[in-house]
């Protein structure tokens, strides 16, 4: 049964992708309908998978010695991420019905979106590292296609190529790590790597651990690869929601959480993970302070919140990180989609030209404010509980300075979120923008997510129960929601964080409002523009690889003789290696 459900969860979006293409761009109504139908069906199947959550393998198909077996394991980690990918993905698809109405190439758009959702589900459900890698690459390819969807805009194309190349760096890390694990264990099975990690030589294990850390950082846009995500903002807004909330960036967090038990004993690994999280969370929070592009601000906040999750994993709080991942997926999808509704109605992303839109778009304002309060981490909203849980874990298991920096990050988050909300919806109107009302489909998707922002923290008990029960190597303890609520409300750390947030909000209200529209100080702007000095590094990588590809273009001339030469050359190379290694 679980196997059928898994096949449907991955297969339905992929089938939908093909049918949308087959429907053709001349039937946009069909395309919208098919995409919504298939993605919703996949989300429904993912929800049906909950009762079948277990650490048992659902499928074990032996594919021969070089591939191992194709296996799928519906454990708690996999199922929760599958639900996030498919359900929030389908809400983004529903939103697209209004947002993408009238676009010429809907077939390509929906094909990539559905292919993306299916691949993400496959990535987290796969029990075989090699197939995890395949799905990982598919998500990279789809994200490239979607970021560059407006392919007549050079900025969109450049952003897509940058995302592709930087996440490829991560893909290479994952591949090298997987092959090393295979060379030492003789198996690609994730369960083997988790249970037999201690039998490997210590230096090999630490190379694998750091390769996987590079993979996760590149995929989740963590320091030092944090520059591709803001550039990915050229994508249509539902795609930004999909990449930031439902799919792509969660893959890195998933990888760290999944292999945490294997790597936690590697010296220096936890510290590096924690450091990557802290640095990303802080510097992107600073960058969000000065950004004037609405989507860019949200992108920086995503990197910052992902930094919190990475920090939590570094502090040993896998459960806290997964809980925040769930909350973040819901409220960030809400924020992105409502930002999309704003951008769709006024036709600009520049916050300095918006202002006082709240009166013209009351519904969008209300849901955006709900999402913003969750991002700030104010009580009752899901972001509050999960962020406080992370800070709680951080207080117990990380150095004091790290905890202090994360508290500072929370205060900065409150400041920039408030600034963003105020610039868009409140204050005075600064430009005469023509406003369309938001469409019905948009409102449905936003409404569901707004309800989710209020309620998903109630799922904590269920999440921790399934994670604890189905991940035996992680040694997690099941906690009930009530216990979590009690613990957080009684902890002095919570009140410290809340008072810092209050101070930050007061600071914005009395001082920051005057500055919000002024030019930010030159040193801060320069630091933000160069991503704290790491923009050149990332640009160097992406330019270097593009340049190399350009140099090698002459080898791809389609001449048959030339290709034969390649085949013969490769054959001779393999023979030489075999002779040299004495097989």
């Amino acid at each position, binding site marked *: 049964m679980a196997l059928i459900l898994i096949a449907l969860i991955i297969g339905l979006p992929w089938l939908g992708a093909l049918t949308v293409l087959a429907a053709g761009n001349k039937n946009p109504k069909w395309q919208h309908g098919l995409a919504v139908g298939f993605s919703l069906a996949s989300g429904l199947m993912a929800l049906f998978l909950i009762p079948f959550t277990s650490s048992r393998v659902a499928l074990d198909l032996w594919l021969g010695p070089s591939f191992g077996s194709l296996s799928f394991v519906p454990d708690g980690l996999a199922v929760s991420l599958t639900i996030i990918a498919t359900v929030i993905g389908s809400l983004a698809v529903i939103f697209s019905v209004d947002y993408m109405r009238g676009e010429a190439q809907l077939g390509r758009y929906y094909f990539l979106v559905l292919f993306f959702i299916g691949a993400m589900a496959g990535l987290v459900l796969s029990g075989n590292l090699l197939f995890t890698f395949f799905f990982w690459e598919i998500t990279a390819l789809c994200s490239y296609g979607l970021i560059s969807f407006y392919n007549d805009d050079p900025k969109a194309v450049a952003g897509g190529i940058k995302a592709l190349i930087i996440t490829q760096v991560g893909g290479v890390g994952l591949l090298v790590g997987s092959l090393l694990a295979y060379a030492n264990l003789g198996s690609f099975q994730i369960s083997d790597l988790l249970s037999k990690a201690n039998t490997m030589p210590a230096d090999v294990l630490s190379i694998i651990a750091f390769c996987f850390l590079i993979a996760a950082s590149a995929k989740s846009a963590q320091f030092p690869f944090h520059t591709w995500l803001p550039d990915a903002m050229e994508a249509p807004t539902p795609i930004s929601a999909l990449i930031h909330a439902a799919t792509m960036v969660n893959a890195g967090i998933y990888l760290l959480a999944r292999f945490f038990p294997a790597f936690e004993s590697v010296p220096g690994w936890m510290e590096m993970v924690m450091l990557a999280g802290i640095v990303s969370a802080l510097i992107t929070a600073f960058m969000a302070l000065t950004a004037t592009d609405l989507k860019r601000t949200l992108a920086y906040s995503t990197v910052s919140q992902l930094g919190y999750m990475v920090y939590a994993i570094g502090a040993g709080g896998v459960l806290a990180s997964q809980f925040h991942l769930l909350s973040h997926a819901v409220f960030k999808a809400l924020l992105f989609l409502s930002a999309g509704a704003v951008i769709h109605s006024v036709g600009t992303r520049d916050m300095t030209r918006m202002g006082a839109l709240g009166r013209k778009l009351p519904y969008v304002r209300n849901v955006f404010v709900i999402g913003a309060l969750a991002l700030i981490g104010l009580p009752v909203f899901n972001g509050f509980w999960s962020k406080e849980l992370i800070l709680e874990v951080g207080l117990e298991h990380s150095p004091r300075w790290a905890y202090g920096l994360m508290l500072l990050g929370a205060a900065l988050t409150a400041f920039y979120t408030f600034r963003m909300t105020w610039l868009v919806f409140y204050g005075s109107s600064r430009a005469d923008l023509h406003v369309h009302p938001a469409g019905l489909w948009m409102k449905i998707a936003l409404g569901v997510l707004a309800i989710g922002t209020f309620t998903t923290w109630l799922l904590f008990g269920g999440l921790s129960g399934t994670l604890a029960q189905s991940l035996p190597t992680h040694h997690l303890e099941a906690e009930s929601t009530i216990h979590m609520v009690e613990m957080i409300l009684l902890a002095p750390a919570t009140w410290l964080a809340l008072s810092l947030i209050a101070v930050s909000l007061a600071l914005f209200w009395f001082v920051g409002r005057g500055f919000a529209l002024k030019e930010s100080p030159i040193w801060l702007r320069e630091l933000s523009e160069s991503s704290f000095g790491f923009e050149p590094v990332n640009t160097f990588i992406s330019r270097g690889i593009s340049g190399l590809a350009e140099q090698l273009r002459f080898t791809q001339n389609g001449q*048959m003789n030339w290709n034969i030469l390649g085949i*013969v050359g490769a054959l001779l190379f393999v023979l030489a290696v075999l002779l040299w290694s004495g097989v």
Partner: protein
Amino acid sequence: MSLTPLNIVLFGIVALFGVGFYGLLITRNLIKFVMVLQILIKGVVLALVFAGKLSGNLGLGQSTAATVIVADTIVAVVGLALAVQVRRRFGTLDVPKISTLRG
């Protein structure tokens, strides 16, 4: 190496392979292309039988070889038919010229 029957067959395989690959590397004519491909495949067929003999599984090697013969006949037929069509349409069998003509 002494000239045992097995070695003669081995030389045959290497020679057919070499001629085939060399032909594929240098030829520009579509019909010659099909011909050298056939030579290459004959080397493969011989190698299959040879491998069957060496592994003591002669029947398997021979039956695989028979299957390959059937398949490569089809390759030859389709390839030559394509060559005829290409010649009719473009007036040349020169591969680089065909690929630059387009359409």
